[in-house]
């Protein structure tokens, strides 16, 4: 019961990652692609947590913590590069 619901949730997150991937490939302006990348990183944290539920291991959450802390730096530095504030 619980696992079935979590499989459906995993499917939703995968579909959203594929949709943002389309936006990344066919972005109109430069900010569009950065936004798609940002949402992709946030969704991948959800995937990591659900994987760590299925293979019952607490230490996988360390990877998610490091990811959540460092992945936004890429977005911030690209934004600073675009507005010439680097």
């Amino acid at each position, binding site marked *: 019961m619980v696992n079935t619901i979590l499989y459906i949730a995993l499917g939703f997150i995968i579909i959203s990652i594929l949709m943002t991937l389309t936006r990344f490939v066919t972005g109109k302006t*430069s900010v569009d692609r950065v936004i798609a990348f940002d949402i992709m990183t946030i969704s*991948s944290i959800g995937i990591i947590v659900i994987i760590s539920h299925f293979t019952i*291991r607490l230490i996988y959450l360390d990877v998610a913590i490091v990811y959540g802390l460092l992945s936004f730096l890429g977005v911030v530095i690209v934004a600073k590069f675009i507005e010439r504030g680097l």
Partner: protein
Amino acid sequence: MIFNLLAILLGISTIVFALVAIYTKKLIFAILATGGVSLFASILYLLMAAPDVALTEAAIGSGLTTLIFLFILNKIKEEDV
């Protein structure tokens, strides 16, 4: 079964990112796409039960390499955002 499907989709996404990094005209998108390759490769390593490699890929490949590449790109290129 669903993890096989997840691995296939993530692998295809990784390859799409790598192709974007090769074929795009602007260097800044190539750098972003390299970060994306690291992102999905990190999840794939996690799926194959290698959290050490996944942590290294997340910290160095996705965080620090993007920073250093963009600092250098900002240094060598003044015009054309």
